[in-house]
């Protein structure tokens, strides 16, 4: 974990709302894990936007010394990030937090991603497939055009299901039925999710009912990203009591069973 200067290699639109950012940052991909994040300085100075913006690692490419991010251009911070040109420097702090765990004996996992939550789960899916773990992915988005990653995940051998608001198939109850069907096939060892509070609650209930381990990557507004400000804490169920934990430091990935206020 450190403060470093990377260089923008690519920063391109993948659809009308998301951009894919590739940063040359020697030594960082090697020490990054799926589910961890970087804290990016989006503006040129602290007065344009004061705080850094947390972004999950979307891909790490140690061979090319590259980090990839997939981000939704949402407000002022990501707008400034979207303006970065090839060759510009990018000040980044990370990798931060704790990533996903994929226990050695697990052979089959289920991943539920909503929107840009897919970016956070992408490196998990990639590393599971590398270890030849079977992966079912449910991708939820507003419209079919907003669905990202379908072909990318299929190409590495994941089974992908897409659900959208446009067709009503993304309703938590509909997704629950899909999940239950997949779990009913009897092979799933663990479930993962990111991107939606409602889906997180749903998946937590289902995982609990099936006695399956589950993990979620949470988002919370952050100031420091490194554990100092206590701005990102949320309440979790741990060892029988409610504890305040920092999403940036103890998370952003938490056991589904510990989540209380998703």
């Amino acid at each position, binding site marked *: *974990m*450190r*403060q470093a200067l990377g260089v923008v290699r690519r920063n391109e639109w993948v659809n009308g709302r998301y951009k894919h950012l590739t940063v040359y940052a020697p030594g960082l991909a090697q020490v990054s894990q799926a589910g961890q994040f970087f804290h990016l*300085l989006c503006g040129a100075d*602290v*007065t344009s*936007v*004061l*705080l*850094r913006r947390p972004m999950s690692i979307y891909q790490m490419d140690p061979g090319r010394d590259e980090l990839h991010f997939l981000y939704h251009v949402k407000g002022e911070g990501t707008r400034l990030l979207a303006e970065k040109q090839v060759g510009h420097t990018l000040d980044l*702090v990370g990798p931060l937090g704790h990533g996903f765990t994929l226990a050695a004996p697990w052979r089959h996992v289920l991943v539920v991603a909503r929107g840009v939550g897919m970016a956070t789960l992408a490196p998990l899916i990639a590393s599971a497939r590398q270890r030849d773990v079977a992966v079912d992915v449910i991708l939820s988005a507003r419209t079919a055009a907003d669905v990202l990653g379908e072909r990318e995940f299929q190409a590495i051998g994941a089974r992908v299901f897409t659900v959208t608001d446009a067709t009503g198939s993304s309703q938590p109850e509909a997704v629950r039925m899909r999940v239950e069907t997949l779990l009913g096939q009897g092979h799933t060892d663990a479930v993962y999710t990111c991107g939606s509070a409602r889906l997180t609650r749903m998946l937590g209930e289902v995982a609990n009912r099936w006695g399956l381990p589950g993990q979620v990557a949470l988002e*919370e*507004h*952050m*100031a*420091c*990203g*490194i*554990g*100092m*400000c*206590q*701005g*990102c*804490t*949320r309440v979790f169920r741990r060892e029988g009591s409610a504890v*305040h934990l920092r999403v940036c*430091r103890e998370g952003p990935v938490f056991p589904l069973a510990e989540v209380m206020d998703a």
Partner: protein
Amino acid sequence: MTSADLSVQIGQLSLRNPVMPASGTFSEDLAEFIPLNELGALVTKSITLDVREGNPGPRLAETAAGLLNAIGIPSKGVAQFIAETLPFYRNFTAPLVPSISGDTAAEFARLAVLLSSEPVVRGLEVNISCPNLEDDGKSFAMDPVQTYRVLRQVRQATRLPVWAKLSPNVQSIAEVALAAQEAGADAVVVANTLLGMAIDVETRRPKLGNVTGGLSGPAVKPIILRMVHQVAKVVRIPVIGVGGIRSAEDVLEYLMAGATAVQVGTYNFVHPQGMVEVIAGLQKYLQRHGYASVRELIGSVIT
């Protein structure tokens, strides 16, 4: 060029340089980014006697060149602080100054007693100014009489240097500073955050769970700098300036306005290595202008 002397004296305490983190914007975690011993002192997040949860979320909202926070004072309680946190700081030589927060003067005194028996503790910052603890942002530091009362009890409870952290949400901060001096404080820290608010116009809800919170960051610097200037004119004890610092120039403004040392808050979030760079920038300025010691600059503004 020979390097200039950066050391300053806050009462009995010698600091190797005038730059330290502000309470609540620093923790052990920063040791992964910078050598803590390069800092003038180490000020912790305010701790309380008992366990506290802090405020409900959201706890943060960004504003123009500013940050609103309504963290409150989540705390593991002083017993656990002594057992778990203090040992970490034994590895460092930079003087440790825990910040203490209480609901009553007696609580402050009790905290002072408990911490005074710990050799690693080299001073106490008395946070009488947290705007989130009580209704509508009131705090001890909004009243010279209450300020005197708390500081007096802390003074009587400890031989450690005692710093009073004042609130900027007052009409005359100089009056409150004088009350703290009168009570025996060794320094005043000027100042905590300004009470502010922000609303999400799409949801019509306050952006902070606590409705109001404290404003920090570059936005507030002109206001706090003015307060440091006002306070330094009337007190005999050192003033520690804190508000919006993000460069050596900002530190210099505070020193010239009358501060003997400064604290860096929000900027630590933006640049974990920021304080070390600021200290280097200070050294450069002194050399470029031929000052032998940073102390020559204290209160040197020409008005």
